[in-house]
């Protein structure tokens, strides 16, 4: 009994020390960035443009998985701005409970307030017109911004199965004709490519149920939890992504 209490205390201590270590590390990184920021005085846009110039592989579709309860609309506004600078053609924000969907008007309003210069580059929640070839063009191209929740994930598959089975019950479809191609076609979000990269913002690295039929080759990375998402971390993760090689089972 006493041994168990002692061992459990040691475990708690190990967790505590680990948290302290992470907090110190983050504080050091933030401090270092502040110092170098003062010396070099680079703006967010400078950093993004430098990254764009040296990186060959940029995700076509980036998903931000918001695993926290207190999803910040302001963070989304900043991330959309960064994606426009990097010519990422599709950005989705996914939170399970549909917080952003409920606050879509608020997000649009904030964006219009903070980045009036970029408002014309955004296509909200519609992706009928794919932008120019993989988004790497000279001028700033349009970005498609999508807000996703649970209903777009498993919920959408359930709705599809209901409609397929209705067709079966009416004799319009044979179960044998249901293939993964058919399902992919039906779930195809009007030409929206599958996510290339998902950045998880939350305490836990988890898919949170993100698009089970669209994420088999998606790379998952976690954003560190600072007070707000920093452009340096965003760039660092995109640079990591640019180095990934997909081996497709070889």
């Amino acid at each position, binding site marked *: 009994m006493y041994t168990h209490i002692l061992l459990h205390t040691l475990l708690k201590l190990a967790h505590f020390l680990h948290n302290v270590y992470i907090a110190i590390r983050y504080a050091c990184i933030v401090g270092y960035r502040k110092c170098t920021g003062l010396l070099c005085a680079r703006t967010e846009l400078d950093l993004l443009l430098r990254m764009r110039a040296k990186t060959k592989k940029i995700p076509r579709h980036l998903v931000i998985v918001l695993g926290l309860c207190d999803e910040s609309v302001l963070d989304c506004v900043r991330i959309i701005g960064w994606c426009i600078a990097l010519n990422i053609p599709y950005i989705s924000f996914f939170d399970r409970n549909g917080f952003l969907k409920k606050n879509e008007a608020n997000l649009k309003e904030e964006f219009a307030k903070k980045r009036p210069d970029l408002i014309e580059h955004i296509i909200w929640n519609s992706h009928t017109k794919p932008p120019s070839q993989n988004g790497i063009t000279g001028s700033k191209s349009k970005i498609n911004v999508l807000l996703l929740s649970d209903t777009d994930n498993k919920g959408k598959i359930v709705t599809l199965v209901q409609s397929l089975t209705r067709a079966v019950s009416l004799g319009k479809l044979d179960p044998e004709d249901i293939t993964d191609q058919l*399902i992919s076609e039906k779930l195809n979000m009007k030409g929206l490519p599958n996510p290339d990269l998902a950045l998880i913002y939350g305490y836990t690295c988890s898919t949170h149920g993100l698009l089970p039929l669209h994420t088999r*080759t998606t790379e*998952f990375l976690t954003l560190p939890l600072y007070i707000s998402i920093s452009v340096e971390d965003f760039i660092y993760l995109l640079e990591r992504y640019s180095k990934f090689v997909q081996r497709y089972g070889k």
Partner: protein
Amino acid sequence: MTLALKIIKTGHVPKHVAFIMDGNRRYAEKQKKAGIEGHVEGFDKLAETLKWCRDLGIIEVTVYAFSIENFNRSEEEVSGLMELARDKLAEQGICIRVIGNLSLLSEDMRKLFAEAMIITENNDKATLNIAFSYTSRDEITHAIKDIAVGVKHADILPEDVNENLISQCLYTYKSLNPDLLIRTSGEVRLSDFLLWQISNSCVYFTNVLWPEFGIWNLLSAIFYYQKCYSDLQRIAKVQQLKPIIEHNDRTSMYINKLHHERQVMIENIYLSTVQS
């Protein structure tokens, strides 16, 4: 090491852990060995990992052996895995289940799997699910097909379709969802593995190659899981707030029928092995 294991055990330990065992070939290349040797060491590592899991109180493990895309790999690898399953695991009271599209396998392999499943089906000390010729996409497609057949035969109605029903029609219907998924070798993809089942799971990526995976890597993964535990609980609580859709009698009967048919299919393959 034993002390560290005892300390970790005093916290929340996942009941079900899934592994994507990646890096056997790269390990062989690194060691300048033949590819098959990497897999042999990978199998040994699996046996070792299962022992650690049991020591820690993890009662269910799911491993991703080879996906359909990787299926052109040698049959030697498969027989190695099955030998391991038969010789080592069955004796230890471990129940073996193979999840995946068995119809894509050769008859010999189907028989090997059916035999392992039937011989060990009453073992209850722990469960090892081996994902073989498995992809999530194929699994979900098959579940949808089965549901469509159910509707065609008027066992169920289109309005009976919900998330629970789909989950019950997956290859993994006998298992609870994994609490923790570990992928080795530094890849940060899920490669079509349990994508439906891991919605609420903690995912842990590690750079170590599978044959180099050690007890400290496993303890680190569980340490990470423990750090995430309260967040995972919070997420689960929010999910529980949503209305739970219970199966009606019609759906329950259909699910029982489907599970029975699958069991009979495995038994028939096994019986054909015994008779031949």
